[in-house]
């Protein structure tokens, strides 16, 4: 697929997206609500298909965001799915590790440093923080200094 065909393919999910941003020709950002992230990730990884790069967790003042970065190696395009988690008290999102083992570690890491719960994660243990690190202290939150 060339870039145009990839763009067309991504239109298939436009009804589940809040918006599409394209700051550069080969950098696409798809914005969605966290409830749709599982389905959208499955589409991106299995149907397009794209290569999973990594996920970024962000503490963004009024919500949490999980950005899933994918690469389309034929054109060098990076497609990022930006999922908004609106509930700041108990941030939670569906884990994508069941169909994407490559995401296991990064979800464990985001749980450690931001306190986001990944529902149905096959192996949620500490990855980054020490065993005796206190519960409930999330280093990458803006409130932690």
């Amino acid at each position, binding site marked *: 697929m060339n870039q145009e065909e990839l763009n067309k393919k991504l239109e298939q999910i436009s009804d589940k997206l809040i918006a599409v941003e394209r700051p550069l020709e080969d950098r696409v*950002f798809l914005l969605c609500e966290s409830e749709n992230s599982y389905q959208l990730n499955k589409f991106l990884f299995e149907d397009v298909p794209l290569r999973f790069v990594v996920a970024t967790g962000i503490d963004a003042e009024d919500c949490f965001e999980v950005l899933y970065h994918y690469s389309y190696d034929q054109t060098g395009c990076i497609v*990022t799915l930006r999922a908004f988690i609106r509930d700041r008290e108990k941030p939670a999102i569906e884990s994508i590790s069941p169909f994407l*083992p490559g995401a296991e570690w990064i979800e464990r890491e985001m749980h450690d440093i931001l306190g986001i719960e990944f529902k149905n994660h096959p192996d949620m243990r500490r990855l980054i923080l020490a065993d005796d690190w206190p519960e409930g202290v999330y280093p990458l939150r803006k409130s932690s200094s």
Partner: protein
Amino acid sequence: MKESVKKPVIAVGPFHPLQEEMEFFQLTVDGEIVTDIDVRISYNHRGIEKISESLQYDQIPFLVSRICGICSASHPLAYVQAVEDIAGITPPDRALYVRVLINELERIHSHLLWVGLAGHFIGYDTVFMWAWKYREPVLDLLEEITGNRNNYGNVKVGGCREDIPNEIKPKILKELDEIEKKTEMLTKAVLDDPVLHARLKGVGRLTKEDAIKYAVVGPTARASGVAIDVRADDPYAAYSDLDWKVITQPEGDVFAKAVVRLLETLEAIKLVKQAVKKLPDGPVAIEVKEIPPGEGCGRAEAPRGETFHYVRSDGGNRPVRHKVRAPSYVNVPSFKASCIGEHIADVTITLAAVDPCYSCTERIAAVDSRSNVVMDYNKLLKLSRNKTEQMKKEML
């Protein structure tokens, strides 16, 4: 009156002065076959992403180049490319060529280091000595060009911090000719050796399907037939102006990974020579006043694979978020696929084949699920070297 003599007890934990890195691999074995593998990391977590949020954009390249000693050119390059994307900057041509030069020199010395370590793990200490000896001129060159053997501090947002004096170009070409001859000799010696064929072929195989499932990158992926290379797929710096090829092998075993790395070293030498000969004149950086709000993704092909940096800016002079993903982060978990079912004598070399920074295979212990016998790293290394000895005896 006798004084009691106090004997100090020294605990050898995941941290030890002799070990290069601190990771812990726990293998569960049944007899001599690995049935499961668990990895514990983060004994030396330094909080780089958190530190980034308190640094200014031009301070961060110095921080990220210290993430790893032998990918120390790739991390800053990926980071500045992410920021240059946000600001819509294209560095001058000369900067793009200098970036290629430094990064490919790094690839040469990183791959040669790996060849040496792999030799050590299977008992070929001569390969170890030769590879590290031929690596020295590359480090000397880097020191002459950038002032340092590692942590070059050469990239910045907008170009390069320092220029390469044109007077050094003939020396670079001359040194590379020598290094190329030695690397070709080493490649031939390694690839033609029947004992190495028997020892490494079919060992630690990572199938193409697993390579995709675990999202592996770099030589680990290319040796399993997955033809991905950021320099070709999403060209950065001056790679699209130069003539080189992506090296892949289909088998996915340790031998294939060795072949990929050796041939890539020769390609890297070609690339440096071209970059030197085609180095354009002109400035080596442009002035950058501020970074507007936005987000950028930058990536570079480090010796171990794709290094990915994501930066979010709100228009201030510090990033809101800086995500770093090193290639070993996705390559190391793939051990679950490549180690299970293997013989324990092959574990050290399978783990080393993925080339985790500085060989984190130092931290392995094997636990027998029936008798709870624990075998530490030294015993596993011995097993690996003995297996080679045995094979040699049978073949010669």
